[in-house]
């Protein structure tokens, strides 16, 4: 066996052994239906387990506690998925988006302040969208007015996932009213304990309340918490938005290809439908598409690593995953039929999908809408990937 492949297989064995020793066998059942605080405590405990093993932030630079080669990161996510490990939901924005922003555009002081803290459990939320700034994010109206060595922030953020548990917020706010809309935005690190912040959960279509509104009323942000230059926030946001897409999507694709597809096949088996040619045809189609998606994610990571990623690659993966998830969960709901309408609560799940297919199906719009709707992704793919004419943008 070639040396590189052998190293990778050794690493796979190590992760596999670790998974067998550390993933509680009954965690899904134990976590289903528990109060929110208990779930948060479990997420914090699992994050600490991964951190102690060196598996929580493998994508970070070695200096900050990461440094795993990309091929090993892929193996790590493959094995965690294969063993139905809990997914890091609470720490998601912290380890991906917050870290990418700090590493790409933060000062040394900001990095030293927050990267170790994230490893100790600091939780972040993203404060980008607003009621009047969804797909047209640059139309955001929240303002940050310079006042000595601080900014005073006023406005309203929407769809901030996990804001009730967050210690810090990645905030976009307008610092120049007169400039063209993309040139008057700044990027801030906002301490969620600051006076003047009001967080209100919004119930979503599946009944969860992790999305929140954040009301900001004369909230003081020290100038030291500005990321990048004043009025350069849009560029900072653009530079870091797609940065982690490959790995994040690889993890979700692996989850879909392991537990997700297994649950779907088991559901068909329990209904005695595996021998039914129409059912079998749909299943084989999904397996094929998941296989393509997994390869696409791996490829995106490799291209990103070697600087060969195309301007639409991340959008292709996001769009394809979202719509595959929607079709697959829709099929799950259809095949399990009326009982899936009577399943009112999602079981705790290792994947984004849970096997409660009707709820999973409704919840799949959480993928086709946030993070750039499927329509926006198609615009990006056509304009940046294929060079089709842009529409006039202010």
């Amino acid at each position, binding site marked *: 066996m*070639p*040396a*590189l492949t052998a190293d990778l297989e050794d690493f796979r064995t190590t992760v596999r052994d670790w998974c067998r020793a550390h993933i509680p066998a009954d965690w899904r059942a134990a976590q289903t239906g528990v109060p929110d605080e208990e779930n948060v405590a479990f997420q914090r405990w699992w994050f600490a387990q991964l951190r102690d093993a060196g598996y929580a932030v493998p994508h970070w630079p070695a200096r900050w506690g990461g440094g795993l080669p990309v091929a090993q990161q892929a193996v790590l996510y493959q094995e965690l998925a294969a063993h139905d490990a809990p997914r890091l939901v609470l720490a998601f924005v912290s380890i991906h988006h917050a870290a990418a922003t700090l590493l790409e555009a933060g000062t040394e002081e900001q990095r030293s302040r927050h990267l170790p803290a994230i490893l100790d459990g600091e939780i972040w939320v993203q404060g980008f969208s607003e009621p009047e700034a969804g797909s047209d994010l640059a139309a955001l109206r929240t303002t940050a007015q310079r006042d000595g060595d601080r900014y005073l922030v006023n406005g309203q953020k929407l769809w901030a996932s996990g804001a009730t548990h967050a210690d810090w917020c990645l905030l976009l706010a307008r610092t120049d009213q007169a400039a063209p809309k993309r040139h008057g935005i700044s990027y801030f690190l906002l301490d969620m304990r600051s006076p003047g912040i009001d967080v209100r959960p919004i119930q979503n279509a599946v009944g969860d309340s992790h999305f929140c509104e954040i009301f900001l009323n004369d909230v003081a942000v020290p100038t030291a918490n500005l990321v990048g230059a004043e009025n350069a926030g849009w560029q900072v946001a653009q530079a870091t938005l797609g940065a982690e897409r490959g790995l994040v999507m690889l993890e979700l694709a692996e989850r879909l290809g392991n537990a997700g597809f297994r649950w779907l*096949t088991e559901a*068909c*088996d329990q209904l005695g439908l*595996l*021998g039914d*040619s129409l059912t*079998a*045809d749909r*299943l*084989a*189609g999904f*397996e*094929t*598409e998941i*296989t*393509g*998606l997994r*390869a*696409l994610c791996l*490829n995106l990571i490799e291209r990103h690593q070697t600087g060969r990623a195309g301007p*639409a690659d991340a959008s*292709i993966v996001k*769009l*394809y995953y979202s719509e595959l998830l929607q079709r697959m969960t829709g099929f799950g709901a259809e095949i399990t039929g009326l009982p899936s309408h009577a399943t009112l609560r999602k079981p705790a799940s290792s994947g984004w999908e849970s096997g409660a297919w009707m709820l999973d199906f409704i919840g799949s719009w959480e993928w086709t809408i946030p993070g750039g709707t499927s*329509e926006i*992704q*198609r*615009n990006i*793919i*056509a*304009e940046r*990937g*294929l*060079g*089709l*004419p*842009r*529409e006039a943008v202010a």
Partner: protein
Amino acid sequence: MTSRSVSDLAEVRDELHVVARDLLGKAGPGAEPGWDVLAASGWLGIEVPDEFGGADATFAEVAVIAEELGRAATRVPYLGAIVLGAGTLRAAAPGDGRAELLGQVAAGEALAVAVITGGDPAFRLTDGQGGRLRLNGEASFVPDAADASRLLVVAYPGDGVGDPVIVALNPLVPGLAITPTPLLDETRGLAEVQAGEVEVAPEEVWRFSGDPHAAVQRLRDRASVALACDSLGVAQAMLEKTVAYVKVRHQFGRPVGSFQAVKHACADMLVQIAVARELVAAAVDALTEPPEGPGAAEAAASVAASMAKSYTGTAAVDVAGKAMQLHGGVGYAREAGIHTYLKRAALNRDLFGSPIAHRARLASRYRPAAAGS
């Protein structure tokens, strides 16, 4: 293999893409570049060992040519003679007849076409009167059989359960009838092959060098994946042609490519192609290693082949169909040439197993009885 040599190989394949695109692109859709041109380019002997004048390369390079043939919608007997014919010769046990033919194939002097069907044994080799061997059977839609200077018929013993062998025949022998099948797709040649009491000499019967059943399955998988490569080339050509057109075609005072309905259709084409490309790459990789006989690796290669064939076959029809739609009236006109690609994509989809047939093969693994096998 080190990562350096992997990237070297990737570079060689990238260059082969460029050279092939250039040569075939000049010929234009539906063109028939001479077989001698392909021979001179070294494309016929890609997998032929160098002792017989070939390049001793792999299926991965054959796959490059297959994709470029699809992209240019070229009419050449590459599928029957090289993907399958040369592939069959390579899988045959060493022998004088095989050695001579391999040399002729690489030089473009012989067109050895494999007669292999997607399903049940179609040809039977039986002992006739006086211990003479007889070949009987028929197969339809055989790629490039009418162009053959030699036929390599995969035949089974009379009882139909034994090991398949290769029967190497002159197409003109008595009892053998090869009838071209007129097709909507004018860029491919398919034919019906009928054998009625064809007398076969013992030296015309060649064995496979490894496990014969695995070898035949591998040949079918090669055909499936080469067709998937062809479809990928078709789809890529149709996307590029469409993007170029919608950028310049104006209606309502603006390029039609600025309308979201058109843009989104183009985006969907690109996404389908991106997924197809991954599945095809995985299948080509799986088939680049020689078959080891029945086992997990061989089963995985067949799975990869079925995934690539089913997805890409459908995707190319979708993409070519969208290309026709987005070209509007121009696209429906014969002169635009899009019909050529749409017909080729549809034939690719249905040759060597429809997407439904390949998905059925994939799904047979889900049944509990199949678990662990």
